[in-house]
């Protein structure tokens, strides 16, 4: 008997089918991958299962019995647990309190001791080795917070664990750890559903995999009997290449004195990721990659470069477009030709409850093309947004919907289109393809390379080493707040770069 089965399940929003006639089943005690492009309906299907959305047709069966979940509470009672992509934890409260929230033991008096005993036992049984029960959640690393979420599901005795894009926010080490833990959970009989669009991790860590495309089920495969190419083709509906194979124009060796952006001895103390004597320059017609394990100063560097006014205590030199930029604000940098794709599009890049036109205006709200005498002319802006929707194939293709209606990949396309809109000569781009589906990755990579080939300067931050090596002309490796080494394109080698990322010598 299957642990879970979808029989012809449909879910529509208005006339739009987010899920159409989905049928697949998940065997107990396995890790089952659910993959598909952004907007393919993976999250909708799981939210329907978890009782967040009511379904409009078909049947969901758990342990062979049809169920009709009306709320997450009911789903939890049926043994279904979900770790959302954006964690649902109360930051200022302790780990223990977060875990027992909603399932508090004891009558009248909250019996924390009993809960702690039980949790220690659970942590032991599943080999999670968690210790920090009394730490505040917001003081934990992202990987630890995720473990708290998983512990919470185990405490609720969930038999089916749904993980929505669990690796999107983790460092490579944390990813390894996560999958080791999941393997142990599987061995103890738990059923795990892994929502992902990273084919490699699905291929290495699942037992079977179901592919969705445009709300429909394309097929289910035994993981051992399939491969990256087949899955990608099922997802996108056409063959896909994974490395950038487009044109890379060769320019005459750039004169170092022509640097458009130069940083010297940049030191920023008193922040969570300090910088120590960082120096580099960015030349015309190049992509300069920035590599490093998350937390080694890249975030501070990007924030400083895009908004130096935020760092009054910064020491050193920052020149851009021929002027000193220490203490500048983003609008001044923009006027000098800089554009930004921030690290986290949700918190730094979008106004979720505004339509796409309003979002497209962010950062361009004083651009003379759209604004005269402080008054915005939205009729000039709307055609630009429509063009961006066409060029980047943003779906659904409407200007008057909230940004929150777009899936992650489409949101990212919007942010990138907006950055390119003013035809900047320098781009600071962070994680351009994080959480973006395979089809869109190609398009984004092409767009970035097109800018380079047109002579633009691009500083590219990414946690995907493959992406950096594909696109960059040079790579700077950050370690402990400083540039640990620079690699030119001839020297690119994942092992050598990885060694420097881990603190070794070049």
């Amino acid at each position, binding site marked *: 008997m299957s642990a879970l089965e979808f029989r012809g399940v449909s879910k529509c929003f208005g006339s739009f089918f987010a899920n159409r006639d989905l049928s697949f089943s998940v065997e107990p005690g396995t890790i089952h991958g659910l993959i598909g492009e952004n907007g393919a309906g993976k999250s909708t299907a799981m939210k329907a299962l978890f009782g967040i959305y009511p379904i409009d047709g078909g049947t969901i069966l758990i342990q062979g019995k049809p169920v009709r979940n009306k709320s997450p509470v009911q789903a939890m009672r049926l043994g279904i647990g979900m770790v959302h992509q954006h964690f649902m934890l109360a930051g200022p409260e302790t780990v223990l309190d977060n875990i027992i929230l909603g399932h508090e033991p004891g009558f009248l008096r909250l019996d924390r001791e009993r809960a702690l005993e039980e949790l220690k036992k659970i942590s032991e049984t599943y080999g999670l080795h968690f210790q920090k029960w009394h730490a505040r959640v917001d003081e934990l690393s992202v990987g630890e917070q995720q473990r708290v979420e998983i512990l919470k599901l185990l405490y609720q005795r969930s038999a089916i664990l749904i993980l929505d894009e669990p690796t999107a926010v983790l460092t490579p080490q944390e990813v390894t750890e996560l999958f080791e833990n999941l393997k142990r959970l599987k061995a103890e009989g738990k059923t795990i559903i892994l929502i992902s669009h990273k084919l490699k991790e699905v291929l290495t860590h699942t037992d079977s995999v179901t592919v969705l495309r445009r709300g429909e089920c394309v097929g289910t495969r035994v993981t051992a009997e399939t491969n990256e190419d087949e899955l990608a083709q099922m997802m996108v509906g056409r063959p896909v290449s994974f490395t950038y194979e487009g044109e890379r124009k060769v320019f005459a060796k750039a004169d170092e004195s022509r640097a458009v952006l130069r940083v010297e001895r940049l030191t920023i103390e008193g922040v969570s990721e300090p910088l120590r004597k960082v120096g580099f320059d960015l030349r015309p017609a190049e992509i300069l990659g920035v590599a490093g394990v998350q937390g080694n100063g890249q975030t501070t560097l990007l924030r400083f470069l895009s908004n130096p006014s935020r760092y009054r205590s910064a020491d050193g030199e920052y020149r851009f477009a021929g002027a000193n930029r220490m203490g500048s*604000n983003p609008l001044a940098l923009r006027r000098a030709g800089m554009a930004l794709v921030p690290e986290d599009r949700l918190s730094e890049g979008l106004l979720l409850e505004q339509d796409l036109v309003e979002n497209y205006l*962010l950062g361009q709200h*004083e651009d003379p093309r759209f604004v005269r005498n402080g*008054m915005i002319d939205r009729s000039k802006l709307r055609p630009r947004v429509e063009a961006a929707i066409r060029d980047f194939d943003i779906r659904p293709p409407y200007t008057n919907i909230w940004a929150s209606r777009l899936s992650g990949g489409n949101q990212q396309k919007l942010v990138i289109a907006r950055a390119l809109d003013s035809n900047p000569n320098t781009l600071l781009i962070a994680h351009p393809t994080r959480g973006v589906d395979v089809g869109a990755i190609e398009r984004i990579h092409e767009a970035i390379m097109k800018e380079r080939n047109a002579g633009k300067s691009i500083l590219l931050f990414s946690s995907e080493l493959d992406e950096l090596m594909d696109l960059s002309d040079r790579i700077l490796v950050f370690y402990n707040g400083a540039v640990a080494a620079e690699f030119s394109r001839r020297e690119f080698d994942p092992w050598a770069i990885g060694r420097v990322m881990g603190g070794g010598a070049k």
Partner: protein
Amino acid sequence: MKSTWYASFRSFLRAVAGAALGLSLGLLICKLVGESPLKVLHVLYQSSFGSGYDFGMTLFYTAPLILTGLAVAIPLKGGLFNIGAEGQLTVGALAAAWAGVIGASIQSPVIAVVFATSSAFLAGGLWGLLPGFLKARQGSHEVITTIMLNFIAAGVTAYFTLYSIKDPVSAQAETIPLPEAFHLKPFAAFNGAPMGGLIFFLILLAVGIHYALWKSSWGYSLKALGENETAAETYGISRGRSWMSSMFLAGGVAGLVGLVEVLGNSHRFKIGFSADYGFVGIAVALVARGNILGVLPSAFLFGILQKGSASLDLETDKITRDLSYLIQGLIILGVSAEDLWGWIWQLVRRKK
């Protein structure tokens, strides 16, 4: 644009339906205490629209609520909760009265009114700017600072009223009366209710602010800041400038209550003249869901209810003042319960 317009219209219809629902519940309660619902409706209607005087008085109650409703709704766009309209309007009203003392020799009504208006706006605005500045500079929470400034405003205005410009011939705590040039003329059709062309000015003001927030780069920045502070800052929107300007505007608008009360009605500043306009303004803005134009009907609703509850107490046997407040509360609840309609709709659909 069309969809936005449609959404606002639907939201307005829901509000009207909500008011009707709240009123029906209120009438049901009236029935239970033994008063005829028809009689109650009649009294409510008569007291707000029955005569020129009644309608004028309803507008007179509405006017300060439009201003304080705006004073709450404007900073709300930028994510600030202005609890300080009460203090801002007090300071503005005193400034209007003081303008009359300083400008006693002004003969031209136009110059006199402009002078008093700008004094009221500036004084209220500066009083609002202060918490905006503290928030931008020190991160002081605006709810705390604006509440505190309400008390300070009450103390400061009382001091100046009693020790600087007190009316020497009056036994009350009030300032020297304004000269004739400063008086705003009421409409004759209102039979003595103190409301005139000012009401059109207030409607224009709300429309103008709505337009500025939607069209200007300033308004966009404020809205973006209210929606997502981190993103706004990342893309170069200055928190300090937006917060301070919105609080200055809000305070200034609240200060214009001085026009309604001082120039239009009592022609002097009286300590404690405000019937909690600043606090009712919070409810006005919330019922309008922060929508600038929505403040107009929302303030009008509150005006009608305020006028009506006094009459219900007087003109019916069973309905006391407290009970009329209860009816008022039910109507406001009905308007605010936006999700109610989605819920009812779902029930209806499931039945089918």
